[in-house]
């Protein structure tokens, strides 16, 4: 029910904003067309400004992905995490999630197809995919757009949150779909 409600809101919200904001602005005597164009001017320069940051980050991530380092890491960590109730199969997805959005979607789709959407791994992969963002993409694009080069502790906070969301996914999927912890 909640899902339906949110879906409805999601469908209405953009058209409503495109209707209400210009109308409200007009009622407050804003020259709507001129103000829109004025604000929109920055769209192009902002997007262009991101390019060097995004090239740096995506090249490093692509190299890392193509090298097979994630598979090696997953193989090493598999036996370590298994006693914690974490199936080793989902480790590559856990590593991919903060690095690459399209890569993570690919891995999640494969896990769901191979193990079945209603299997434990399928449900866990679904929850993991839905419960984290592509941390490095967000950091790169947001900071890049205003020329920030030193990120302070932001990457650490993002990664700790990602790990927490991953562990929370494992725990809650065990609880809700009532499979005993090994």
């Amino acid at each position: 029910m909640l899902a339906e409600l949110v879906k409805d809101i999601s469908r209405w919200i953009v058209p409503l904003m495109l209707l209400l904001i210009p109308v409200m602005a007009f009622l407050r005597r804003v020259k709507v067309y001129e103000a829109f164009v004025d604000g929109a001017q920055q769209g192009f320069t902002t997007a262009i400004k991101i390019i060097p940051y995004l090239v740096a980050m995506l090249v490093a991530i692509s190299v890392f992905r193509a090298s097979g380092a994630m598979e090696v890491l997953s193989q090493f960590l598999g036996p370590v995490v298994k006693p914690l109730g974490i199936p080793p199969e989902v480790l590559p997805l856990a590593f991919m999630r903060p690095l690459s959005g399209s890569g993570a979607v690919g891995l999640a789709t494969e896990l769901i197809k191979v193990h079945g959407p209603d299997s434990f791994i399928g449900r866990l992969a679904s929850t993991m995919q839905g419960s984290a963002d592509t941390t490095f993409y967000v950091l790169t694009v947001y900071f890049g757009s205003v020329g920030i080069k030193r990120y302070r502790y932001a990457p650490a906070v993002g990664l700790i949150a990602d790990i927490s969301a991953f562990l929370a996914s494992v725990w809650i999927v065990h609880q809700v779909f009532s499979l005993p912890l090994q």
Partner: protein
Amino acid sequence: MINAIWLGLMVIGIIVAALTGRLDAVTKAAFDGAQLAVEVALGLIGVMTLWLGIMKLAEAAGLVQALAGLLRPLTRLLFPSIPRDHPALGAIILNISANILGLSNAATPMGLAAMQELQKLNRGDKEEASEAMCTFLALNTACLTLVPTTIIGIRINAGSASPTEIVGTTIFATAVGMTVAVVVDRISRGLYRRRFPWR
């Protein structure tokens, strides 16, 4: 830290590739990555331009400021350094709302509009993230999600008996992630101030 991560990804990637005989794949990946970055950035131009224009209208009409006022208790707690009724707060609220609703096309442009406002308030080094920016990014990288639309679609395609059964578990996991992000951000801010009191 971002320097170490960037170098680490590159060095580990190339060493592992050399050991596993994947140097050709890595060479191709490097060029593909650069190409993809430009495509992603150029792909943002259209939606960016549209939403920045709409945001300007909302700001001129006083709507962004009104929104900021509405959620003042919450934003004061999270962003004590932003003056009340500053447009940055309105843009932040719009971005977080778009994220929670899963409107990724609208969330990024609004987020970048918020970053521009935050950069105006950044009184220190303009190349270094401010405290408010770090908090904003923490909220963004670990944001509450109500409906994970992409994954529901994938589950439908895979023939799931109940594609939406993972909505509850996702809300729980994202709520944990967001809470941890806010708490760790606050702790890090304190530690950072103690280590670099002059900043």
